[in-house]
């Protein structure tokens, strides 16, 4: 199960999506994180908590992905999660 670390606010600012640190994350000097539309969708799922396979499935449905699209979707999702992990935003 993947989950977004608590203490972050997802907000649209001037057409961009931003994860703002709040509370203890601010004290720890965490930076804001900018995400694109696809990233925003993943972050919203992570706020609820989701398994990796389920995350792929909901995206495949949303983007009407074909079977050929799935490997790229998996790779892109994995890359995005690795970026969140690097920032300390991902709970696994």
């Amino acid at each position, binding site marked *: 199960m993947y989950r977004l670390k608590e203490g972050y*606010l997802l*907000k649209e*600012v*001037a*057409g961009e999506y931003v994860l*703002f640190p*709040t*509370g203890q994350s601010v*004290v720890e000097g965490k930076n*804001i994180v900018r995400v694109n539309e696809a990233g925003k969708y993943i972050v919203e799922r992570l706020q609820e908590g989701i398994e990796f396979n389920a995350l792929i499935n909901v995206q495949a449905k949303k983007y009407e992905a074909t079977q050929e699209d799935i490997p790229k979707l998996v790779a892109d999702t994995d890359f995005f999660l690795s970026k969140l992990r690097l920032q300390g935003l991902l709970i696994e």
Partner: protein
Amino acid sequence: MSMKKVYRIAEVYLEIEGDESCFCDTMCEFETEAPADAEKVRIVLAAGEVTVPVQEELLHTEEMTIYGTEEEYLMRYRRSEVIAGCRIQKQEESAVIYIKQTVGNDEEISGAIRNIFFYYLQKRGKMVVHSASILYKGKVWLFSAPSGTGKTSHVAMWKECGYPVEDFNGDMAICYIDEKGQAAAAGLPWCGTSGIYRNMIAPLGGVIFLKRGNNNSVRKPNVFEGIMQLTARSLTPNWDEACVKRNVQLAEELAEKISVGVLSCTYEEKAAEVSKQFIDGL
């Protein structure tokens, strides 16, 4: 002896009640009398210890731990010999500062009052921006940057160049959209260690964000960058999601109404010349 004083800061009445030894001299300039029906932020300075029931810990620093519930925030001071903690109501504009001892400790108490007042300012749609500010041609201009970047030095350069400026505040300014929909800046009795503050409200011209560089140049950031810079330099609380959301909203509203610049600057007088040209050209 217990007493009650009322201050007016950025159009907000602040009533403080407590022992006379707790009151801070620098706030005198803001003292006033409030109309009977005025809505006030009320802070009581009371003797006693703060008790922590089961509440969510929002953050902790070396100095304090902040807890939150639906109804209130609770600050527990970890090191202070003066203050035990604070209880801050979310709905009513009412707070208590629990004092351990009072004599000659007005600076720490002033800091606690500031923390609480900034929370209620934020709830009233006002943001405090970390900056050295000047009054120039009838408007307030903020030079904002992280500590140590040279905000004070930059303001000093304006004076050394002989530009017609007056000090507004050496460390922070309250920024907001007033009842007429205009951006305004208000002085406040807190100013870091600068000693520079004044009781005044004036139109807010804009904010120049300073960055140290090898040459002097200024540019207009895009809307997104302007909002993010303002949010980053805000001194109003970011204790939880509600606070951060309000800060970002205030930054969005302000960014629509004011001029914003990013100044790459040196410690030479040329830097003041470049920022003045930018402001004059707006």
